[in-house]
């Protein structure tokens, strides 16, 4: 088999059941693939996964997609990945934004537009509607040149317009009340140290 020179980013969507990751990884293994990164989540019984993997030169993106869809009955997307795709870095402070209230269309749209205007990146989001009550939790990074107070004012105005209550709190308060470590990450001056520690662990 030739060297693994083709790298792809693959998404897989399927109704959740036991054994999806086992099936997908078996298919990719049979194609000569090697997994480099993987993350999964489930929303309302629907499983989705994103994978970065490297394949032999002769395995095309179309072949990977077709095999996944045919053998596994998944909805799949496969895109080529440049060898050194730069991962964008969002420097800043981690905040958690929570909004809740009566459900109606346009709440996420309004709040996320407020983030985008200020250059605030959403790192993770969770949203659920139960018995007409809407709740959304965003993990965001507020850039260092943005005053959190301004971001909060923007959000509160957006929340008023769609009739929900919003809170914006530094992530450390949740770490402090729920885990043994006091801070979610090391102070910035120690990032080099943190990187060295990570390398040691790896």
């Amino acid at each position, binding site marked *: 088999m030739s060297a693994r020179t083709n790298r792809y980013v693959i998404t897989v969507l399927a109704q959740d059941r036991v054994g999806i990751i086992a099936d997908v990884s078996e298919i990719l293994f049979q194609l000569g693939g090697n997994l480099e990164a993987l993350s999964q989540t489930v929303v309302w019984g629907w499983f989705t996964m994103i994978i970065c993997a490297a394949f032999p030169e002769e395995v095309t993106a179309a072949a990977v997609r077709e095999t996944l869809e045919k053998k596994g009955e998944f909805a799949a997307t496969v895109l080529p990945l440049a060898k050194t795709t730069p991962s964008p870095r969002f420097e800043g402070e981690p905040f*958690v934004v*929570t909004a809740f209230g009566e459900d109606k269309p346009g709440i996420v749209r309004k709040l996320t537009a407020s983030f985008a205007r200020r250059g605030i990146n959403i*790192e*993770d989001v*969770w949203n659920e509607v139960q018995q007409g009550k809407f709740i959304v*939790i965003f*993990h965001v990074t507020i850039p260092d040149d943005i005053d*959190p*107070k301004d971001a*909060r004012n923007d959000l509160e105005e957006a929340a008023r317009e769609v009739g929900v209550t919003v*809170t*914006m*709190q*530094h*992530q*450390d*308060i*949740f*770490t*402090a*009340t*729920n885990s043994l470590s*006091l801070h*979610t990450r090391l102070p910035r001056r120690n990032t080099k140290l943190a990187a060295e520690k990570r390398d040691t662990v790896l």
Partner: protein
Amino acid sequence: MIPTEDILKTLEMVRIENLDVRAVTLGINLAGCADSDAGNMLRNLRTRIHAAAGNLVRTCEEVAGKYGIPIVNKRLAVSPVSFLFEGHGPEICLPTARVLDETAGEVGADLIGGYTALVHKGITKGERFLIESIPEVLSRTERVCASVNVASTKTGINMDAVRMMGEQIKAVAERTAARDGFGAAKLCVFANIAEDNPFMAGAFLGEGEPDTVINIGVSGPGVIKQALRRLLETGEDVDLGRIAEEIKRTSFRVTRVGELIGREVSRKLGVPFGVVDLSLAPTPRIGDSVGEILQTMGITSIGAPGSTAAVALLNDAVKKGGLFASSSVGGLSGAFLSVSEDHALSEAVRAGSLHLEKLEAMTSVCSVGLDMIAVPGNTDPSTLAALIADEMAIGVVNQKTTAVRLIPVPGKKPGDKVIFGGLFGETTVLEVRNVGASSRFIAFGGKIPAPLHSLKN
């Protein structure tokens, strides 16, 4: 990423269960302000407090906003003001207190503690002036809080000071009769006073403390009550050991909030971080009460047999959970039985289930003493002094801090309602039994010697 359940749990603690930071208290040493010229000294005081505390409120609001946790009170605690009075006459007292009051107001502080005298072994001239000025000072200032330490485990009880304090409490209440004796709510009499206590009216900056220091008082009765309620609703087989464990875990969470916020305020102000005080401090709001915790633990009428044991369990578990959560714990650190400030305790007094004697018994296993208790206005000073002496004896013998904050409400009798307002709450006047029957004992004066520290069997 923080799990969603953890985020929702923390939000519930803040939004529904009244989790907050009860007090950020900035300690300021005033020794450098001493001057034999009164005018110079008052100017020094103003300059010193402005320089140390000018940014306190703004910084607290910034940090509270960042974490979404309210900081209810921003306070100042100065070194004992009586030290500044040495070498002066009694006329120095009121102007000094007024400068403290005004300057605290100018920097936005809610209260300023440290109008304090430490007289557990003897009384200096300055300390005598301070004690004698308390009625005038507390009736003519808004924010000044006074405290007098009359006893310690190492030195025993200064009964001359105890007798003086019985008289002063009565005088303060009478001078503030129009406000139901409210002035007495700003006066605490202590045994083994804590040098780093962030809570009023007893906060002051002790001798062993730095030039300036940040001490934090957390709250959390509502959070603990809800945690116990949820535990009991699980339908599991719950015993008191499991209840203690749940209190410990919850106290850990509450204390972590204080630690995080205190350290950030301290860093931003460039002031050393002192301690987190683990005390469960109630507010008059329903759902923020130490009494409600006792009710959740099965003491349906507070004051019933079992109340003291329940308080002992609660107090111990709070400390154990809190100690693990903070690298620096101090102050009073216990459950407050502040009657008018705790609606469930206040209701127990109204309903007649909680009496003075039972409160006294409960204070032997928790902080901080007979606190915010309204008694009839005609209670004589020697009986007030005798109540102080009993509470001091509990502190001295048990090597713990105890305090007395009684309000003899002028013109009111047992069963009458009293409203102090705000965080001071409202209550019903408690009966004091055997009034006048200890006047001879108090009249002896002198000292009750320090207790033995050996032969403990």
